[in-house]
Structures are given as structure tokens and as C-alpha cells.
């Protein structure tokens, strides 16, 4: 079965991110396909590459990054939600003349159409809301 996941909650502020990550892992363990993880609303904060949680605590950013690299799963951040919250990749930072950027290429910046496309292309679109 083809799955996609939508995450609406930020890291640490709700269970959404970790539950989504565990579900994503279970999808692949169950021999299903994971088309895309789409981060929307406060979910875009999961792409913040500057997270520095205490060393003995779960590092959500690193976990998403490792998951994506290991399984070649696309992590997509909604550009409208991201800009509003200061989550910019290098290109957007340059476009808006900002000195810093928060997103790395592990997260792709794209439009809301990717969420709708995930719904159209997948057998199941599972949302993790805050």
C-alpha cells in the first residue's frame, strides 16, 4: 500500500512529530511504500536544522534526517507555512535578503500542491496534528 504522512505539529511541543516518525518507520517495516512526508503549519518547525536538544534527549531533527537519508523518503516543507515562521532554506534566505537560513537540503521546500498530490497518489494519507 502507498502511504503519505502529513505533520501539523512542531517538535517537542506536541506528540505529532515523534508519532509521525514512528508511524513512518512502521510503514516501511510493514513492506509498504512511503511516498512523502509533508510538513505543514507548525509542522514546518521539524525542519529546523539548528535544533540543539540536550544530549540525553531525543534529537527529532536528526531522527528525521537519518530516516530520510536511510530510506530515501522525501521530506517536504510547505513554503507558505515555512516563510511565515522564518523557516528558510538557502535560496529563500537569499531571495528575502536574510543572513541566515534554517532549512538544509534534507528538507525540500515546496508548495501545498504536494499535500494534495500526496492525497491523490497515496492509498492512505495519515495526518499527525498537534
Amino acid at each position: 500500500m502507498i502511504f503519505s504522512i502529513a505533520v501539523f505539529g512542531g517538535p517537542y511541543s506536541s506528540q505529532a512529530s515523534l508519532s509521525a516518525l514512528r508511524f513512518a518507520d512502521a510503514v516501511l517495516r510493514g513492506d509498504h511504500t512511503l511516498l512523502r512526508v509533508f510538513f505543514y503549519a507548525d509542522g514546518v518547525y521539524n525542519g529546523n536544522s539548528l535544533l540543539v536538544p540536550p544530549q540525553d534527549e531525543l534529537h527529532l531533527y536528526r531522527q528525521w534526517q537519518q530516516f530520510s537519508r536511510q530510506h530515501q523518503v522525501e521530506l517536504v516543507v510547505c513554503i507558505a507555512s515555512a516563510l511565515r515562521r522564518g523557516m528558510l532554506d538557502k535560496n529563500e534566505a537569499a531571495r528575502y535578503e536574510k543572513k541566515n537560513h534554517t532549512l538544509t537540503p534534507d528538507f525540500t521546500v515546496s508548495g501545498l500542491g504536494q499535500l494534495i498530490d500526496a492525497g491523490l497518489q497515496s492509498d492512505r494519507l495519515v495526518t499527525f496534528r498537534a
Partner: protein
Amino acid sequence: MKKFLFVQEQPPHGGILGQEGLDAILMGSAFAQCTVLLLEDGIYQVLGNQQTDELGSKDYSVTYQALRDYGVEQIFCPASHLQRRGIDIENLVVPVQAISDAEVTALLNSHDVILSF
């Protein structure tokens, strides 16, 4: 074509998720058949005569009026949720169909993709 049901549960102000949900409905309408279900405080998103100047937030209820132009024809709300809030359907900015709880279940079951905000 797949049928999308967008569920809006958030009140319109105090958080931006409702507005971002509406953005998703607009995007969805370009690619799929879309229906809207307003649950609980989500019904306040289409309440008329909102004055948001003092709130520092946008009155996006007007965008709901544009949904029909995007092919989103049907907006539902459980009659019980309207009743509990003392909201008269006449005071909403768009035509909303009040339905029974059983009809809500049928609505959820008859759509392929459900996105809940």
C-alpha cells in the same frame, strides 16, 4: 476522481491553523472534488460580521465566499454543534447545510481523503 473532505475544527482567531486549513481547501479545489465539514468551534470561521481589526488577525471568512467559484459547493456542519453555540445558519457568510450526527458519519465514510485541521 478522488473525493477530499476538509474538516475545520479550529476557531478562526487565536491560532492560524484554520486559515492554513482554508489555504489547503483552495489548493485542493484545483485538483480534486472537495467538500468542507465544519466541526465544533470551526463553525465560527464562517460567522458573519467579524471585526478583527483589534485582534491583529485577518477576517478570512470572505475567502469562504469565494469557495463556490473554485468548485467547492458543499459545506456541512452538524446541527448539534450549531445548536450548542446558539448559531443561526442565517448569520453565516456562506450557505451551510446542517446535518445529523449520522449524516456526519456517512460523510466521513463517503470520502477518499480526509484532512483535518
